[in-house]
């Protein structure tokens, strides 16, 4: 195992903190809210321009 591989292996072992919200649950909620907002925007877009 060369130096680079060892470095990579060590970096895998340590799970870093989850950025921005500190939890993946918050990320999942964000994703759902964004999807909902997109669908609402698309409904508005369809009604306004079609």
């Amino acid at each position, binding site marked *: 195992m060369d130096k680079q591989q060892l470095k990579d292996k060590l970096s895998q072992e340590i799970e*870093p903190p989850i950025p921005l919200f500190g939890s993946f649950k918050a990320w999942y909620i964000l994703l759902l809210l964004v999807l909902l907002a997109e669908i609402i925007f698309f409904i508005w877009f369809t009604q306004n321009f079609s």
Partner: protein
Amino acid sequence: MSRIDWIVLCVTLLLILTYGLYKSRTSKNLEGYFLSNRNMPWYLVLLSIMGTQASAITFLSAPGQAFTDGMRFVQYYFGLPLAMIVISISFVPLFSKMKVFTAYEFLEQRFDLKTRVLTSTLFLLSRGLSTGISIYAPSIILSSLMGWDIFWTNIFMGGLLIVYTVSGGARAVAYTQQLQLLIIFGGMFIAGYYVVHYLPEGVGFSEALKISGASGKLNVITTGITEKGFDWKDRYNIISGIIGGFFLSLSYFGTDQSQVGRYLTAKNNTQSRLGLLMNGLVKVPMQFFILLLGTLLFSYYQFNKAPVFFNGAVVDKAMQTSYAPALSKIEGEYNLLQANQQQYSRAFAATQLEADKLLVQQNRKTMDALQKEYRQVLKQAVPGADTNDTNYIFLRFVVDHLPHGLVGLLIAIIFLAAWGSIAAALNSQAACTVIDFHIRLQGKKHDIANEEDCLREYKVSKYYTLAWGIFSIITAELATGMGSLIEAVNLLGSLFYGVILGIFLVALYVKKIQGNAVFVAAIIGECIVVLCFLLDKWGYIGLGFLWLNVVGALAVVITAWLLQKILPASVPADAVSVTVN
């Protein structure tokens, strides 16, 4: 193409090729070659996931799809963010914990060897064929528009990327995809700018939207519900988009090695998940903007002369036949209507009155009917010719109207988009062949401490990558006209994806079902999917292809559950508990 276009095209392609070779340095073992030593940050994982999914077809077909059918295609991606969440919760932690190279390795630990081999075979079969289409699709369009020889276009489209994919494996693939996407997004933005810039004076972005909206092109949300109830045959609506799109995305991102191989390159679990979740955030808006480009293009052609049929090569052939007078007559009538449409569109852009809108709509309907008639005559004049010109619309605009230099750049973008997805596919196909077949069926354990073994496996992996590259080019050379190619690729995927997903769903969520039951269920499930596809094709049932993913997955889960009650249990000696609790 002008000299400057050729220079831009060659320089861009050489830049990627050189960059790919420059980034080829990796550890000479399987971990380095297939997983880039698992050291990628989330943003490289994200770009690699996006670069793998977005093929040349995405950038060629999507604007054309919006031009002809409107923007409702975006609904197809509504299930994707939901799938990203499920994969982040269930699939990624398991793959990461088990340190697998391929998604199918997990199936042997959960079930048995035969289930792993069957699933890997289904993947190789579908991915092998669709990689061929990914080469052929842009090649046939470029060769028709530019007059290039299809044989050599296929060779260049599928051949040059093999150099860096064979040499650098997953690392070279990820780094080139990063640069490719930057160039692609830059080029598409410039093309969009020119479409709006070329609109007549007094017609801005908002007026352009109103004009395409008046012709029904801004139908982003459709329900698929008719007077007779829900239309199962309707391909893109919010219901099939969320449910069918969810199953397709879950299968594609959770069980297709070309995608699993991308996020397995991440430094850790967190980076893999972040890459996937970010993909869920950006995919729908990205697709929306690509489709919007198509509707802007539609508006542009309401003020400018458009060909009746965008694939000039087919028209040229038809004009050599006895059908030429009939075609010329339709063209004449179409041109008159087009002149009227320009007037009506200008009036509507200026006044926004309902009466003017009605004129635009009625005239458009007559034009569409003439286009349909023109296609039917083309079909009679050139039997076997592809009379669907969706894939030619955007590139025809590029070639006919964009300034010198930009044409070369946009054509380079088609190559780069194709390279990104094909390179990832070749890398994943080689990974499955080496890990699931070559090493596994030899009965040898993969020993990372044995340098000689590692080097031999590394070399074998390179040969398999090369072999799959050659196979894909041969498939591309053998491919023939298949209508809208973006749909052909998705349709091909849908024939296998549902079943593969069903196997993984059983593996992850239904603890009591074992190998024999799921294996037989997978075979029965595949037969059911093919049967549904054929019944739909022959007109006995009406089922949009997105639903095949749902049918396949549910067929496997239900059949496996029933079979488990009948078949004797068979627990492999080394089976481990790997289901989601």
